[in-house]
C-alpha cells in the first residue's frame, strides 16, 4: 500500500468525487458518544431539499416552455403522436419499442435542430433553444 495524494482519484473507472460521497462521510458511519464531533457549520447548507423548490410558478413556466420546445423541435408539420415514430424505429429493428420511441424522438429532435440552424434560426424556436442551453449549463455547473 502506498500513500495516494488527495487530489488523485483511484483507478477502476469509478466516478465518485467528494460530492457524491459527502453525505455518507458526514451523515453515516460510526458515531461514538464518548467522542467529540467536529462542528459541521457551513456544511449543512449543501443539504437543501429540492422538493420545496419544485412547486413554484417559475418551475411550472419552465416545464411548460420545455414541453413547447419539445414539440417545436419535432417539426411544425409533424404530428407529435408517438405511434409514427415508434413505427419508424420498429422498422429499423435495433432496439425495443419503448426505447425506440425515445431514441427516435431524440433523433428527430437533433434533425430538427440542424434544420432550424440551416434555415438561419429565423423561426420562433430561437428563444427556447437559448433557454435550453442555459439550463444545460446550469446542470453542468451543479455537477
Amino acid at each position, binding site marked *: *500500500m502506498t500513500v495516494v495524494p*488527495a487530489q488523485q482519484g483511484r483507478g477502476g473507472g469509478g466516478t465518485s468525487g467528494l460530492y457524491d460521497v459527502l453525505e455518507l462521510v*458526514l451523515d453515516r458511519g*460510526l458515531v*461514538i458518544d464518548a467522542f467529540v464531533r467536529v462542528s459541521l457549520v457551513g456544511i449543512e447548507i449543501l443539504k437543501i431539499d429540492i422538493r420545496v423548490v419544485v412547486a413554484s410558478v417559475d418551475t411550472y413556466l419552465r416545464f*411548460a416552455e420545455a*414541453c413547447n420546445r419539445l414539440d417545436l423541435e419535432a417539426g411544425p408539420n409533424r404530428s407529435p403522436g408517438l405511434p409514427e415514430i415508434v413505427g419508424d424505429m420498429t422498422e429499423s429493428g435495433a432496439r425495443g419499442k419503448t426505447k425506440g420511441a425515445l431514441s427516435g424522438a431524440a433523433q428527430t429532435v437533433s434533425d430538427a435542430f440542424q434544420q432550424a440552424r440551416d434555415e438561419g434560426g429565423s423561426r420562433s424556436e430561437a428563444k427556447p433553444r437559448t433557454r435550453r442551453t442555459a*439550463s444545460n449549463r446550469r446542470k453542468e455547473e451543479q455537477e
Partner: protein
Amino acid sequence: MSTYVYGIAHRSHPRPDTELAGVGDPPRPVRTLAEGELIALVSDAPEDLRPKRRDLLAHQRVLTHAAAGGPVLPMRFGGVSPDDASVKSVLADRAEHFEERLTALHDKVEYNVKASHDEDVVLHQVLADNAELRALTEANRAAGGGTYEQKIQLGERIVAAVQQRETRDAELVHDTLMGIAAAVSRGPASTGWLVSVSCLVARADTARFLAAVDRLTKENPQLEVRLSDPLPPYSFVE
C-alpha cells in the same frame, strides 16, 4: 493531545506498507491502537479541525485504503477522542458489538447509487403517455406558446406528472438493487438526485451488481445513474 479516529478493524488487519496520510495540514500520520482483538485507526487531531475538503478526503482515503485489506468499521467524519486511552476503553467496552459488525461486513463493500432524470427524455415520456397533456401542449404551441395562465396550468400538470415518475423511478431503482444487494439503505432526499441508495454488496456478487446497475440504465433511458467506487460500509455500521 486529542486523537482523531478513522475506523475500527480486527487486530489481524494488515498494516499498510507505507504510512497513510491523515487529516490536518501537514497531514498527521495514521497509526493504530490495539485493545483486545480490535484496533483503531487513529492520528493526532489537528487543533483547528474543520470539515474542509482536504480533511474530508483524507478521512475517506484512509478508510478506503484500510478497507482494501479487510473489513473496517468507518467512523463518521469528525470523531475526536480526548486521548488514546479513551479510544482503547471504547474498544474494550463495545468489543462484542464491533466484532459482530466486522464479521457481518466481512468481504462486503458499499456502493452508493444516485439516479436522476434526463429531463428531455422524461418530458417525452410524459407526453407520450398522456394524450390530454399532449393536446394541451399542442394547443399552447399553436397559440404561440399560450397565455401566462395557460402556461402555468400546463406546467403544473407536467410537473405533477414528472414528480410521479420520480417517485416511481425511485422505487424502481431501490427495488431492483434490493434484489441483489445483501442490504440497502436509502439516503436522504436532496438536490441533484431523485433517489440515493447505498447497497451492501458481497465482493463475490460485485459483477452481478454492476451488471444490474448497467441494465437499469439501459432499460430506462430516462435515468441518469451515478455509481460510486466501492466504499467502506458507512451505511451499515450501526
